[in-house]
């Protein structure tokens, strides 16, 4: 008798989901655990795995349809099975418990910016997390950070029930691997080359970044403005300041840049904004939260420095260090990656002259930082050795124009080239 696969409920507030793509065609064999289809909710794109072995007898909904939660989407059974006896609606009614268990088989990959999710995320518990051994092993299997789970058992213990119902918020975890940040190669050590042509499945993370970036590149008309900065003073000031600081407190060039961007954005609300296409409006964000792209295993994520304009460079530096460490340890917290309004991507440490970045939607712009280099420069009609750094701003043309981009980069110069300003507050 054919088994019915239903639209999974992935969140308390999820009422329906869009079946964006069938991965398995009708008549094809599907094994338990294989990805059946991709479903998009308002928060995430999710791969639905088959909970049965068999042949996909029928796709009950077509690609692109919006399907209410728990409505049947597919039938899986024996090849050539008579579908009459097992039509949806007449299928064996599953008990709620069984349905909950099935959810465990669903892999979730987040492809949306973090803010929508995290706003409803539970507070992170401090100290030792109370959880049953089963909850712990399930969380490990599913990659759920137990600190994010609200325990409803005795004394706040996290039990299986909490892990199962945590599924909707699971994307919070996955953000660590799949931010909506521009896709760039992750900085892994190169593997040994194999002289043989191979085809390997695209890792979920790469696929998610790919979809996201395609969307950004196709929908947001980018334009690019590049500016060259004299960073000689910045490098000197940094050296000076760092000589007074303990090893773990030393400032990076990027700390200066993030601070500079935060202050400059005060003058450019248009670049600290998001387009609301549906309502033909622009949302001017009330906070300046500068995101910083961080390479992690298999991808990257954007950690967020909140209220950058109101923080000292030391506060920025300390905050970013903590977040980078958590990100690389896979222990990122929701607030670490939530709500950036502008992103800085810095490849300066890789001896890069300059590069252009893809906008991190729904932001309006992203700043790509190259390496600071000693170059010949003309000062007062003489060629001298100077230190220069190129930065390229990518801007969504639907929100802003070239002049504004150029003026932003110019305004940024007064902080980058006169770095004492950054140290004053």
């Amino acid at each position, binding site marked *: 008798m054919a088994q019915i696969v239903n639209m999974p409920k992935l969140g308390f507030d999820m009422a329906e989901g869009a079946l964006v793509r069938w991965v398995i065609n009708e008549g094809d064999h599907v094994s338990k655990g294989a990805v059946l289809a991709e479903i998009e909710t308002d928060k995430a794109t999710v791969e639905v795995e088959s909970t049965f072995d068999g042949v996909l007898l029928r796709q009950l909904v077509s690609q692109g349809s919006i399907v209410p939660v728990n409505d049947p989407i597919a039938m899986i059974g024996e090849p050539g099975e008579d579908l009459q006896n097992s039509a949806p609606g007449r299928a064996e009614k599953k008990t709620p*418990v069984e349905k909950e268990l099935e959810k465990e088989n669903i892999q979730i990959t987040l492809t949306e910016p973090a803010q929508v999710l995290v706003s409803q995320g539970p507070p992170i518990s401090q100290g030792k997390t109370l959880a*049953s*051994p*089963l*909850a*712990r*092993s399930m969380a490990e299997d599913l990659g759920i950070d137990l600190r994010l789970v609200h325990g409803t*058992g005795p004394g706040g*213990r996290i*039990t*299986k029930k909490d892990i199962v119902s945590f599924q909707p918020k699971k994307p919070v975890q996955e953000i660590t691997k799949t931010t909506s940040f521009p896709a760039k190669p992750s900085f892994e050590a190169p593997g040994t080359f194999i002289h043989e042509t191979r085809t390997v499945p695209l890792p979920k993370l790469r696929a998610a970044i790919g979809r996201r970036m395609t969307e950004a590149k196709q929908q947001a008309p980018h334009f690019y403005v590049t500016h060259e900065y004299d960073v000689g003073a910045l490098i000197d000031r940094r050296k000076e300041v760092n000589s007074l600081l303990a090893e773990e407190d030393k400032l990076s060039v990027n700390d200066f840049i993030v601070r500079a961007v935060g202050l400059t954005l005060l003058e450019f609300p248009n670049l600290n904004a998001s387009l609301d296409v549906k309502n033909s409006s622009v949302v001017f964000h009330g906070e300046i939260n500068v995101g910083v792209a961080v390479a992690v295993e298999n991808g990257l994520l954007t950690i967020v420095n909140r209220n950058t304009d109101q923080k000292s460079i030391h506060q920025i530096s300390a905050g970013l260090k903590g977040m980078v460490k958590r990100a690389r340890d896979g222990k990122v917290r929701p607030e670490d990656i939530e709500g950036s309004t502008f992103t800085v991507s810095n490849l300066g440490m890789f001896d890069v002259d300059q590069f252009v970045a893809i906008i991190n939607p729904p932001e309006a712009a992203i700043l790509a930082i190259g390496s600071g280099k000693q170059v010949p420069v003309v000062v007062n009609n003489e060629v001298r050795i100077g230190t220069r750094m190129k930065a390229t701003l990518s801007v969504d043309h639907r929100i802003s124009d070239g002049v504004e981009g150029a003026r932003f980069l110019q305004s940024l110069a007064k902080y980058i080239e006169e770095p004492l300003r950054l140290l004053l507050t």
Partner: protein
Amino acid sequence: MARITMREAISKALWEEMERDPSVFILGEEVGVWGGSYAVTKGFYDHFGAERVKDTPIAESAIIGAAIGAALTGLRPIAEIMTINFAFSAFDHIVNQAAKLHHMFAGQMKVPMVIRTVSGGGRQLGATHSQTPDVIFAHFPGLKVVAPGTPEDAKGLLKSAIRTDDPVLFIESATLYQVRGEVPEADFEIPIGKSKIQRPGKDITIVTYSKMLETSIKAADLLAKEGVDVEIVDLRTLRPLDMEPVLDSFKKTNRAVIVEEGWRSYGVGAEVAARIYEEAFDFVDAPIQRVAQKEVPLPYNQTLEQLALPQVDDIVNAVREVL
């Protein structure tokens, strides 16, 4: 299938085995002319004669000692100890002789004997006659300890006990003799050392045996009305302990209550819970609960006695606690 009482089931097993094998005989206090203090061997004396249904003095160590001797020389004695409380008088014979001889003498001799006895409280017999010390005997390797909870299991397991070459302590429950259940007419054995799912369910696992199986089923019926689907695993044998159905069930439900009539300390609950923690730790979703007798010498007063023994409500509450 006939619905017969536990008493009839045990009686039939004994009768059929004695008919089948002339080396099987019974000895014990009041088992002959009187027909047994629980009337299990009524009619045996007249049918099988004094040679095979031996009344003995009130001397438990003599009964077990004689049974061991008979077993060593090739007979298959079934020694009845009127209650398990009296088995303490024969403790050395049971745990130091019967359980060890085969092993201490390089397997040269076998000890194919059954000790039938009665365990459990609830009949106002006072603190010394109402104990459930089953686990004490299950502590000793070399002795098989069987304690059925249904007439069918009683008959099948008793036959296996009589036919096995190891010494078996066969524990009956004082308050189960009148319980009826379906028992096949045919000659059948139920293997010793196999636990059984007596009631399938999916929400929680109750592990129990003997009298407490009946009490647990009543609790499960009540819980079913609340929508709680209880799975009951009946151990049936305390040694060797078969954990497989317990672990399978637990891996499904992730929650367990262990119910025994004896005291909690060092009990069946302690053993089963420890094994679950050892072998299914990653499936534990709530602390395992134990339901057992209150830790007091069992009172004579009926109200107090019932308060001290595990009741249906205790099980229901423990299940609610775990869910």
